[in-house]
């Protein structure tokens, strides 16, 4: 049940982010400056953290999405779905451990 809540919330979060993301990317059609201005704000620490959150959301949603697909199609996965929940969190943790330091160093170090 909790994975369902997580999946739902992350799905909605990503959706709204995507809308905004397409809109801002659309600015490349307006002018490079406008785009760079907006993108510039992505590089501030606050946005850096939001961005990290986004990656986290996508990662969770994606891994759990895969878990759902497996559970729906593969009897073994259905039987071991509880274990798979931990695998999802494990993969997620691994990914974040790989990604976060690097990303945050970009965000806080580089800018």
């Amino acid at each position, binding site marked *: 049940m909790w994975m369902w809540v997580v999946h739902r919330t992350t799905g909605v979060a990503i959706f709204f982010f995507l809308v905004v993301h*397409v809109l801002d*990317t659309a600015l*490349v059609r307006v002018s490079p400056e406008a*785009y760079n201005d907006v993108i510039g704000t992505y590089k501030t620490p606050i946005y850096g953290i939001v961005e990290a959150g986004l990656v986290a959301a996508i990662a969770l949603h*994606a891994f759990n999405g895969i878990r759902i697909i497996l559970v729906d199609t593969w009897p073994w996965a259905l039987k071991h779905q509880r274990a798979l929940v931990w695998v999802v969190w494990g993969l997620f943790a691994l990914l974040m451990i790989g990604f976060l330091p690097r990303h945050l160093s970009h*965000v806080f170090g580089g800018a």
Partner: protein
Amino acid sequence: MSTADATTPVVEPLRPIRSGRSRNHAEQWSWLFMRGSGVLLLVLIFTHLFINLFSGDGVNQIDFAFVAGKWASPVWKIWDFVMLVLAMIHGGNGMRLLINDYARETWMRKTLKTLLTACVATIVVLGSLVIFTFDPCPLDASGDLLPGVPTFCEDVR
């Protein structure tokens, strides 16, 4: 009484389907699509994120020139286009499921779904336009390159 020996009358078979609800398999397609697009999106988005945020200089490298550089190649144009369309339909369909679940009154449902469709359509159209009409070397009114364009524009000129 010999009534107990009477044979049991045959029961008329029922109408094959009692439920008066619609059934055009839409939900099945939606379900299958969510899974299919999910798998594709996994590949598309992770690569996208890897290239944009992880490889090279991470988030700091992103600027107009970076985008222009990527979209110089048709591979990335197609890539981003597919990703855009799939993600919007996947996400849009996901949002539709949510609306079905939570909006109980019909008018609410209708309104939200209209809004959602409009939103998804706009984003898909806008996004596709941007990708396919993208000009990596836009000029200002005077005919000069705008600031911030990638360096290769100089060569092109």
